């Protein structure tokens, strides 16, 4: 697997996020489980491949299965843009920065699962520490600039402007 900085892969970060969610926001965790039940979502984040599988009311990260029901492709930068509120799902999909393949009938479940995850995340204080680690592994600091700079800087807007 791709390991950077302090060694936080996207898979390891997601695994830790699920543990935190279960600890800090149990209701959100079980709502996530309910929506994901029976699904196997394969992620490709800049070449790092892993799969999230849900069965028997538990979420497990595992090596790439052969029977993935949903496939998601994104970059770390896109993930952070979504977390930071710089971009929304529709922006990312229409700009080709977030790709989702699967049976269209599963989209409502995926959508509700994402909402449950985010709802639990903003109720959790531990999640912030994890995000800081993920961010430091993702965005190298530029001289004199915090890597978690203002959420509304024009530079960020330019990054997310549709290409012409």
């Amino acid at each position, binding site marked *: 697997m791709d390991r950077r900085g302090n060694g936080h892969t996207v898979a390891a970060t997601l695994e830790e996020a699920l543990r935190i969610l279960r600890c800090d926001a149990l209701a959100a965790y079980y709502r996530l489980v309910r929506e994901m039940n029976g699904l196997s979502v394969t992620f490709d984040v800049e070449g790092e491949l892993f799969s999230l599988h849900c069965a028997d009311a538990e979420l497990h990260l595992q090596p790439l299965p052969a029977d993935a029901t949903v496939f998601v492709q994104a970059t770390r930068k896109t993930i952070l843009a979504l977390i930071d*509120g710089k971009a929304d799902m529709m922006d990312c999909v229409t700009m080709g920065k977030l790709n989702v393949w699967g049976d269209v009938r599963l989209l409502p479940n995926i959508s509700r699962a994402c909402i449950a995850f985010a709802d639990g995340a*903003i109720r959790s204080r531990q999640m912030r520490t994890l995000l800081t680690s993920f961010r430091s592994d993702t965005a190298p600091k530029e001289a004199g600039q915090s890597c978690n700079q203002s959420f*509304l800087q024009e530079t960020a807007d330019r990054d997310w402007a549709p290409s012409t």
Partner: protein
Amino acid sequence: MKDIRQILDIVDRPHLPPPGAPGRSSFKEWFHFTLTDVQHDADIIANVSLSGDVTRAGMATADVIALCHRPSHGWSGSIDSYEAAAASLNAERLSLKLSGNRVEYVDGAYQLAIHLRDEEFSLTARLVPRASPMLIWNDTPIGSGHLNWLIVPALSASGRIALTDTAISFTDALAYHDHNWGQWKWGDDFGWEWGTLMAPAQDAGQTALVFDRTTDRDGRQVLEQTLGVWHNGTLAKLFTRQMIRARRFGRFEGRIPRLPGPARLIEWGQVLEIPIEYRISARDADDWIDIDYRIDGALQVSVPTDFGFGVVGLNETVGNCTVRGEFGRTAVEFVTRGCFEFMA
């Protein structure tokens, strides 16, 4: 004015629930400040709050909200969350310390130090009260809970704010402070709108106005509303209930960011409920006030609801106010900056 400052030394203190108090899990208390630096076109909002059962470790949070709006740059700032046990409070007077943040009342002035953890945002300010406070300690019902508040409608602020791209030193900036406490649940059947503004110059007699309205969750049924008018440091007029009409017009179509960022993953799409204009008219015999507030900056602070899933939106706005009126044979007319909040 000296008496006012002595009064605040006593009344503006924490109101933490004692251990075992009923409803302590829905306890909330916050210290809110707005500052307007007309010279540098900067509107600043600073809020330090406690939420939850502060009598038990791990059962409450302490949040620091720090925002700055400049027309040329938009919004800067963020929300920092802490375990409430990290907050150090003095029960007898206002002295709240939380990591590198500090809210104190010392020698007749508020001392504010706000430093965000992950973003270049540092605010230090000394705020001197310029008008008598108003204490509304009547357990105003909001949903199944209640709210109390202390208003200091006009202060003079001096200090410095450092952001990623600039640092601004300000002197005699217009400021407002309120302190709220009570027990309520976000998402319960209540809503509110409130706003504050001050005349920009001494020749307007340091007129300050504070409007508040509580409603049902949809904002359709008005429960209580007041418009307080301070002039030359004292409360000159209080319009209440049927004396007041307030109405929204249009929709603010500028960019409206949400904080924290993941809130945008919970409620998709844009924030649509912020008006472009808000008009308040108050009439009582010969006294009258008209306020026309035009919004030029808006941001939503999303608070997780206490009822299941989802968030409650606290829409913070800044803009220009045109104020005209007459109270107690004193006529006022001025244009200034204002800061209003609309709960969604």
